[in-house]
């Protein structure tokens, strides 16, 4: 173990960890604030739900708002946030240093590759553990402040499970990073596995014949045992720990046997693929060609791999959700009957039993915003700050172009990318609806997707603004992620409580989801509000970027 590598890795991510923890605790606060007077209704709702459903959200009995919110924290938010942190550390550990060309300098010292790897892995373990502990303590204290009786809940046990699942994905990224030398592949694939695993754990149990399949997904070992209410499941925890150990050992093998690249994103795996005729064909197809005819076209085609993968995921998911409806519609009808009117607000007054409701819950409520915002935040953050960090902005500005033109063209590129994702999602939904015989109106699909595009563009422009104002890509991504996170939960929780429901209008998500657009058609006023918000953010970006020294 190398103490300085260890502490540097901690320092590199301490702000991100803190922002994540604050985000989780803020969501706990928001939820408890909104649900404060609704204990009875919550008990009524969850008492009437089918048994399988509660297991899905990792809870067995829900008696009050505090249980529900702590359940959401322990089963959804904390693991997502901490897994994200772990993935970014795992991907940066070896592959990230290779990309930046700093690994050579690090290994120029008389230290072995393995000691560098273990120091970074140790930092990841420590930071994720601290993050989980702080998130647990913060949410627990918040719940206590709202008078929640959490004596029968096992928050430490739940957080231990959270730590394990987050580290699983962190070590997966570490493993992939050491074998490919490509941090984008490492983080992209890990996030993909995380999302698929999460979705599978949610969807497969609804289909009886497939419910056993959930066991092949790591998410199953995280919360199917309900650690918040039942305490630690040592068997499940052991499965995750063994998996982490295997990935860690694999990473050690990977980092030892591979030629390390300096400042080059491709690793041995990619190079081997290039040597193979079929692999080369796939890579060339996937890599495509950057269009250099303008800043906007270059920037949009720069992200073609990310765009293609995200679009394919959206298309495929939207396509599959349609035919699945028929397999689960009985459960959905039973479920939707159990929901008292007062609490329909929680899922945006969506009728889950209808095909439109099914699509809204499965694709449009979380997956679409999460994917669109993740992509647009990454693209927006890289747009200006990325060029500065990669030191190409000086060259770009050596040409006779105004800074404002760069901002506008980068915004256009971002919009093109989000529109591409929107088209993939819309087409996927339309095809899925056809395949499942669901007969969802094309105009409504287009309307709901358009709102999704506008939402994605808004958060992309937020990332662009922070990126232009600070020149720091990581700050831009963090700020956008935090804003998206809080905005999403503000709109999910606040409308539940009628006395404060109006505050939800402060969240852009309100204008995206308000009025259930897939079922009832697009509300053009909401679309206009989202578009106007985006343009306002873009307009604010111009002076922010104009007045600043370009970083070198």
């Amino acid at each position, binding site marked *: 173990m190398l103490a300085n590598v260890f502490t540097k890795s901690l320092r590199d991510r301490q702000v991100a960890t803190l922002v994540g923890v604050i985000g989780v605790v803020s969501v706990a606060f928001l939820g408890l604030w909104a649900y404060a007077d609704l204990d009875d209704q919550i008990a009524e709702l969850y008492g009437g739900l089918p048994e399988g459903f509660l297991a899905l959200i990792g809870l067995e009995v829900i008696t009050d708002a505090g249980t529900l919110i702590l359940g959401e924290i322990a089963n959804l938010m904390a693991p997502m946030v901490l897994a994200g942190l772990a993935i970014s550390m795992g991907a940066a550990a070896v592959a990230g240093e290779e990309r930046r060309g700093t690994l050579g300098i690090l290994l120029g010292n008389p230290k072995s590759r393995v000691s560098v790897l273990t120091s970074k892995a140790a930092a990841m373990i420590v930071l994720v553990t601290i993050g989980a502990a702080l998130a647990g303590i913060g949410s627990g204290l918040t719940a206590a402040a709202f008078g929640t009786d959490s004596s029968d809940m096992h928050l430490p046990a739940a957080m231990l499970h959270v730590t394990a699942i987050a580290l699983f994905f962190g070590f997966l990224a570490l493993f992939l990073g050491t074998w490919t030398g490509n941090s984008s592949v490492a983080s992209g694939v890990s996030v993909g596995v995380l999302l698929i695993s999460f979705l599978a754990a949610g969807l497969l149990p609804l289909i009886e014949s497939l419910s056993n399949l959930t066991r092949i997904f790591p998410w199953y070992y995280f919360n199917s045992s309900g650690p918040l209410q039942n305490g630690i499941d040592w068997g499940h925890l052991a499965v995750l720990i063994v998996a982490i150990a295997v990935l860690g050992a694999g990473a050690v093998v990977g980092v030892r046997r591979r030629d390390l690249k300096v400042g080059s*994103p491709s690793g041995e795996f990619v190079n081997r693929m290039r040597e193979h005729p079929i692999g080369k064909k796939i890579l060339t197809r996937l890599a495509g060609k950057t269009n*250099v005819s303008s800043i906007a076209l270059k920037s949009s085609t720069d992200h073609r791999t990310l765009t293609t993968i995200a679009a394919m995921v959206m298309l495929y998911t939207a396509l599959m959700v349609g035919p699945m409806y028929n397999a689960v519609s009985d459960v959905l009808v039973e479920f939707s009957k159990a929901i008292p009117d007062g609490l329909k607000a929680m899922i945006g007054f969506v009728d889950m039993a209808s095909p439109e409701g099914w699509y809204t819950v499965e694709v449009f409520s979380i997956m679409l915003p999460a994917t669109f915002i993740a992509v647009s935040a990454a693209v927006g953050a890289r747009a200006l700050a990325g060029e500065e960090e990669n030191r190409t902005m*000086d060259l770009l*500005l*050596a040409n*006779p172009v105004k800074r404002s033109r760069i901002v506008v063209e980068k915004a256009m590129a971002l919009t093109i990318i989000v529109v591409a994702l929107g088209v993939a999602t819309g087409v996927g939904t339309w095809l899925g609806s056809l395949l499942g015989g669901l007969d969802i109106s094309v105009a409504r699909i287009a309307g709901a997707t358009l709102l999704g595009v506008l939402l994605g563009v808004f958060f992309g422009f937020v990332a662009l603004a922070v990126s232009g104002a600070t020149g720091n890509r990581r700050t831009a991504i963090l700020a956008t992620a935090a804003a998206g996170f809080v905005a999403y939960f503000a709109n999910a929780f606040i409308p539940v409580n009628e006395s404060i429901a109006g505050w939800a209008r402060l969240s852009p998500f309100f204008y995206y989801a308000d009025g259930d657009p897939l079922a009832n058609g697009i509300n053009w006023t909401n679309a206009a509000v989202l578009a106007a918000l985006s343009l306002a953010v873009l307009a604010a970006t111009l002076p922010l970027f104009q007045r600043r020294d370009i970083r070198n």
Partner: protein
Amino acid sequence: MTKAIITDRLTKHYGETQALIDLDLEVELGEVFGFLGPNGAGKTTMIRTILDLIYPTYGTATLLGKDSHQFAVELRNHVGYLPGDLELYPTLTGRETLTYFANLRGGVDWTYVDHLADRLDSDLTKKVRDLSSGNKQKVGLIQAFMNKPDLLILDEPSSGLDPLVQQEFQAMLREIAAEGRTVFLSSHTLSEVERVADRVAIIRHGRLVVVERIDNLKTKAIRRLDMEFGEPVSASLFESIDGVRNVEADTTRVSVSYEGAMKDLLHVAMGHDLINLESVEADLEEIFLTYYRDTES
């Protein structure tokens, strides 16, 4: 007459750090102007300020007769720039990189680009990520030269270039000056500037130390005479001679650093059994150190 570059009390602070202090500089049209200083002296800060990439704390800069901030975009039509520590887009080939920048400039003469690539022996078909730092630098140079700018601003341009390419590059700089265009060349590679520059400025800790013609600098400079005698000679023989700065004697070998004429020195040397004599021409390295010593003392 218009100057290529004029800076007036140009100053840049980064918080407490004073990167550039009251810099007054004039660069004539048609000259190759060397801008010398060690790492961290403020060379890059000065260049990025006059290119409007960063903004001065106070003071102004004029390029080709126009205010560098107010006319920044227009001026870039007439300026070619090579940043220090050049970075390019790794996934583009050299030609794609040049096409991208050419499009931003509204097109360039591609036969001239090919001519430049030939002269610098640059392979434009390879992706930038597969290029060595020297070959990447060539793409950066072509980028700076390709629109035939009236003012070329080059920050440490020779880094990574092999000696043959460096020679070719220096010839290109002389040709540009001969056409009446201006080259502003920042470097800490003194020999490079010495070969091509008409005048040089030396900058240190953000302040201008001196601006001189190369020839003047050389005559002012301390030179060295290495002598070999047939008998042991004492250093004290030379130390009292006017203009001598330093004497190192090792029995029969004596090395004398001096300024001004060498007549008195030779006179003393000839009085002993002088076997061999070698005059070491002053290079900028020594001049540089001389000026540094002067400003420090």
